[in-house]
């Protein structure tokens, strides 16, 4: 480029004394070229970055799309080679089978009962406990909080046997045993509602509320329960939503505890039910795909509507500790 400038007749003709300007023009040209190269370089970089990002997006959501074709055809046609992407004879047989010959609907209802009750129970107990730790003074407060917090990370698997035995033992007791036992809703729900994460989150959140609120309410003669329901609860609604989504997502996706605590088909939940569709030796691929797809689609729709809340909820689990 620099050479072009000096040999260009137009530049030469009007060239002021060469010694001084030659260097300057050459330098300017070199700079311009470097700038252009840099811009080009940055552009390729940007394109490359977006290609990489898009590739990862395809990997992230691709597997879900790979279920669509098998869900709408009979399993035998899956094994033809070369593969037939769009089924020549699309069919709803898989769904018909799912609704008539398996307990899919029962599982879905159980999942809603299981995850819904666990969420409500967790919200109620954790908010009350969080309030007590944030606002009330009582002897042994810090020690109790520390002991509870110490159980934050206890894995389900590590207490699987004793929890199972506890529920089983309570099941042998009169009256209460009719409600809490292996293969009952409460036996499934109560051990799923123990995590202290919500207690901790709620305590942190309630502590940030200004003291003046309580003092004003107390001067007006409001009792502790009244302050809690009329003043604190309305103010922590966002935290309740975040915790609620977090607990619901965690609960309906859980597998290990429902696997051992609800073996009876009447109490089985979706995760365990769908996993049971995958046979040990023979798998009906079409039905497996149909069930998986049917389960993911509604969650995805809800997610797309409330994505901000979801992302916040998932971060809450990791960062608010």
């Amino acid at each position: 480029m620099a050479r072009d400038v000096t040999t260009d007749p137009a530049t030469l003709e009007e060239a002021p004394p060469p010694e001084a300007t030659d260097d300057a023009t050459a330098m300017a040209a070199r700079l311009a070229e470097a700038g252009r190269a840099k811009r080009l370089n940055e552009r390729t970089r940007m394109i490359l970055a977006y290609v990489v990002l898009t590739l990862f997006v395809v990997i992230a959501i691709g597997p879900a799309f790979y279920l669509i074709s098998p869900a709408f055809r009979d399993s035998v046609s899956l094994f033809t080679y070369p593969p037939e992407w769009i089924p020549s004879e699309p069919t709803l047989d898989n769904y018909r089978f799912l609704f008539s010959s398996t307990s899919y609907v029962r599982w879905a209802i159980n999942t809603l009962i299981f995850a819904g009750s666990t969420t409500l129970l967790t919200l109620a107990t954790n908010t009350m406990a969080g309030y007590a730790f944030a606002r009330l003074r009582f002897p042994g407060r810090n020690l109790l909080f520390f002991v509870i917090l110490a159980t934050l990370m206890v894995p389900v698997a590590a207490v699987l046997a004793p929890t199972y035995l506890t529920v089983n033992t309570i099941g042998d007791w009169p009256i209460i045993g009719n409600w809490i036992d292996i293969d009952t809703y409460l036996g499934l729900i109560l051990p799923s509602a123990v995590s202290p994460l919500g207690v901790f989150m709620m305590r942190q959140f309630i502590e940030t509320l200004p003291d003046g609120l309580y003092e004003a309410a107390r001067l007006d003669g409001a009792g502790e329960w009244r302050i809690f329901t009329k003043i604190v609860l309305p103010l922590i609604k966002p935290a309740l939503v975040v915790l609620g989504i977090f607990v619901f997502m965690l609960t309906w996706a859980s597998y290990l505890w429902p696997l051992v605590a609800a073996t009876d088909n009447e109490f089985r939940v979706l995760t365990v039910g769908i996993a049971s569709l995958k046979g040990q030796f023979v798998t009906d691929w079409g039905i497996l795909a149909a069930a998986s797809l049917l389960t993911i689609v509604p969650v995805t729709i809800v997610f797309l509507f409330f994505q901000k809340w979801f992302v916040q909820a998932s971060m809450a689990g990791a960062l608010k500790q």
Partner: protein
Amino acid sequence: MTAVDAPAPEAVPDDWRAPTLSDAEYRWRARRYRFRTVRRAAGFLSPYLIVWGVFLAIPAVWGIFLSFNQGGLIKGDPRVFVGFDNWTRTVSDSELRTAVKNTSIYVLIAIAVVFTLAIFLASLLNHYKKGSNFYKVALYFPLLAPPILGALMWFFMVNFDFGILNLIKRTVIGGDGIRFLGDNPHALLTIVAVEVWRGLGFWVLFYLAGLQSVPEELQAAAKVDGAGKWRRFRRITVPTLRPLLLFALVIAVIFNFQLFDSVQVLTDGGPRLGTATVVWFIHKRLFKFQDTGLAYASSIGLLVVVLVLTALSFWLLGKRRQREA
């Protein structure tokens, strides 16, 4: 507070006198006050404490006692106290040893891969902001499905006959397909891939939040001083992320060490224990009702490992807070 404790002089009525209480009266009132605070707190705490106590705290303590026992899960198999027998056998049991080895390999590879990819993608998203919201949401998608369903999706992807990975392999490279779940070490690596796929979105968001907390003035100042991209990454980004990275590492180890769902549904520990993990081992021993004692003991082993790691993560978090303050 002083305004309330000491009322202004003109407000004091003439017949005011300091309240005098006899010792007994004072003690009684103090006790009544303490009782009231405890009762009030108990009202708020008891719903949680009952559920937590019965279904978490007591079982956790009971588990320690159970680890010295054998059987007791079903009617025909009464519980017997066996002393330290379970514990001595945990050290020598070859199946458990395989499970611990597999889990460790899995944790190492999965965390290395997922953290590298996540930091890479997060720095891309941090730099190229256009459309980053779409990418964030799309990358988050795998977390929506329960682990079981995520694993089942990949069950289709890696199928020997019609899985897309094998279709690509056959057309591009030729030859026969790969038995992703039927051979070792493929099976464990497939599990790693499935879990990396699931967790990636979360860690991208996690590190993106961390990257966005790096002050921009710092970057700009370094740029003016002539620091290159790599140098800025090494000297500014990494040091700011380091406490976050350590904390994330501990948390990731805790969660990944409990790998179970995808193993149970994809390989059930096979082939030839190639994907047997610690939690899979515990579940298998407990609910196939064979040698439950070993499962009781290894449960407590798992509990101890996780509690130690949790303490470590709190300590790291505390250190970060201190530095920030």
